[in-house]
């Protein structure tokens, strides 16, 4: 089930919230767990088995670590291996066999397995529990319902943010619920829904029309396509995160923030501090720092960065373009650290360069194959089949100029400070009045779009 569907908005969510608020505090986790399992099973019932296995494995191994402390290290190693095996088998098996076949000219049978939705997210959550439990950051969770609720929580189950157990441990018990908190969550949810339905879907349609033309595009069209995808992926994913965080607040949870205006970044390093924060944090905590981080010799630091970024790329999918995308960022971060940051460039220049690198990054990310990356990049940099500008490009620009400007406006924190000032001033009533009208308007528009668009998949569901 997806958040931006009529079934979720008008059936699943109201019923779940009603039940959740009606039952006593003790039963809230059970209601949330059952709702989450139903939410997950809606898409692909058979993979609930795999998720239940993951719950039992990590819960059981956690208890075992607690009961047999002398074997803690071995138990952790075993649990990590099994979790990675599970992820690897369902996500990378086909990719691995295809590459072995290509490399050794073999003909091993490739069975294309459907990717269990959300497996990358819930496996990483489970791993964070195992590793931090081993590190002694919190006591073992003995209550199976609480542990299963942590793994399956529907708001962030299938596309994050990746919630570390450490961050929600205290919230797994009785949670504070209030009207103010519920309202805050609802506002966040509406903003996320509007980002997805009004901005991501519409910019996605522009990207699709350019993408469908293949190589027969002009340079301007190629840039319009790339910029549209840049906005689509941001509003799609950050919209989902907003909805997840909002739903979490409505249910009494405080999830970590996943985005902080990444397109306002003035360096690639800064971009990654603002984009998919929960994933970057995960890799930093559980891979980069254990490898030695940056407190090692230069060559080891280079190795650490490349390893982490190759894994980050691979995490996104079993395809070479994701590996390339990861390595691209690894190399950019290294260049920034050891070369570019020594140059004192004006802020505007740094911003423009960062955005160009980010847009190129999304071209690599969105491609279906390596040759397609080369075609798209060569079109963007003056080697387009249809010249620099063609009729299609001008039409696309004219018909989508307002949309792209609106997307740029809302992707930057231009209103953040003025709104904060207004909220804290004596004219706060205006803020609340216009805020209410604005929310009502975007909610109405989103619902109107949802009624006519029956299918709204999120990009990050694939990962």
């Amino acid at each position, binding site marked *: *089930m*997806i958040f931006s*569907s*009529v*079934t979720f908005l008008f059936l699943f969510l109201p019923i779940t919230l009603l039940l959740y608020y009606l039952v006593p505090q003790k039963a809230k986790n059970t209601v949330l767990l059952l709702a989450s399992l139903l939410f997950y099973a*809606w*898409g*692909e019932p*058979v*993979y609930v*088995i*795999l998720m239940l*296995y993951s719950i039992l*494995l990590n819960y*059981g*191994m956690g208890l*075992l670590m607690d009961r*047999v402390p002398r*074997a803690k290290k*071995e*138990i952790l190693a*075993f649990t990590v291996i*099994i979790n990675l*095996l*599970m992820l690897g*088998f369902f996500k990378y098996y086909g990719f691995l066999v295809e590459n072995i076949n290509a490399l050794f000219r073999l003909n091993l049978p490739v*069975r*294309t*397995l*459907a*990717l*269990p*939705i959300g497996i990358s997210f819930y496996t990483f959550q489970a791993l964070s529990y195992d590793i931090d439990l081993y590190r002694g950051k919190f006591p073992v969770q003995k209550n199976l319902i609480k542990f299963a609720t942590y793994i399956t929580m529907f708001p962030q189950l299938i596309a994050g943010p990746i919630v570390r157990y450490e961050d929600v441990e205290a919230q797994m018990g009785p949670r504070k619920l209030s009207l103010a908190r519920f309202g805050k969550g609802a506002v966040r949810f509406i903003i996320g829904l509007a980002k997805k339905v009004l901005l991501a879907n519409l910019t996605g*349609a522009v990207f*699709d029309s350019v*993408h*469908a033309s293949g190589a027969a595009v002009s340079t301007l069209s190629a840039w319009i396509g790339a910029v549209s995808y840049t906005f689509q992926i941001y509003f799609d994913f950050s919209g989902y995160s907003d909805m997840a965080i909002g739903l979490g607040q409505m249910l009494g949870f405080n999830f970590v923030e996943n985005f902080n205006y990444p397109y306002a970044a003035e360096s690639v390093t800064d971009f990654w501090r603002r984009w998919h924060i929960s994933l970057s944090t995960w890799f930093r905590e559980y891979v980069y720092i254990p490898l030695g981080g940056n407190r090692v010799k230069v060559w080891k630091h280079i190795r650490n960065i490349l390893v982490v970024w190759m894994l980050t790329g691979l995490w996104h999918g079993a395809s070479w373009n994701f590996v390339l995308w990861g390595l691209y960022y690894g190399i950019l971060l290294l260049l920034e650290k050891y070369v570019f940051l020594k140059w004192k460039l004006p802020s505007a220049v740094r911003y423009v360069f960062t955005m160009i690198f980010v847009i190129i990054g999304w071209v690599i990310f969105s491609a279906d194959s390596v040759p397609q990356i080369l075609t798209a990049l060569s079109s963007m940099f003056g080697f387009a089949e249809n010249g620099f500008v063609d009729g299609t490009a001008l039409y696309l620009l004219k018909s989508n100029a307002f949309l792209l400007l609106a997307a740029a406006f809302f992707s930057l924190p231009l209103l953040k400070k003025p709104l904060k000032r207004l909220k804290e001033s004596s004219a706060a009533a205006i803020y609340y009045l216009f805020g209410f009208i604005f929310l009502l308007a975007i909610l109405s528009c989103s619902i109107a779009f949802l009624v*006519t*668009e*029956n*299918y709204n*998949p999120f990009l990050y*569901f*694939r990962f």
Partner: protein
Amino acid sequence: MKKVILMEALAVLVLAGIMVLLLYRKTPADVPLQDVNLALTENYALTGMEPAGDMRMKRAFSLNASDFTEYLYYAPDNTMSVNEILIIKCPDESQASNIRSAFESRLQVQKKNFDGYGTDQTALLEHARYGSDGLYSWFMVGPEADSWLKTAKAVWEVQK
């Protein structure tokens, strides 16, 4: 320590079982919809409908062709016909079941259109076949909907 080894062995065994179960469960094969089309047109007259494209699918189902790997659509060929076949192949299995709401909306609209005067059409709509399996989702309305579905499934359903 024995307890640890026992638990670990159990975990491995259960995972192996799940993997085998999921790997060898009956799932549809990834076949081109051209094959399905061929099977349908060779076996049935497919009257009351005509091949249709992106725009008509969008109008009838509010679905964008670009969201899917491929689709096969026969739309009603006149205003009094409800005969329709739509088969969609999704990029991955999890997406297929999300199309269900589009089918339900289409069915409701069509029922409303013919409610009260088109008894034959309403009867056909009452027996509409829609659902999803693996990568495929289907919506079929017509006197032979059951047979069409059987034929289509025979093309993509294989026992692994």
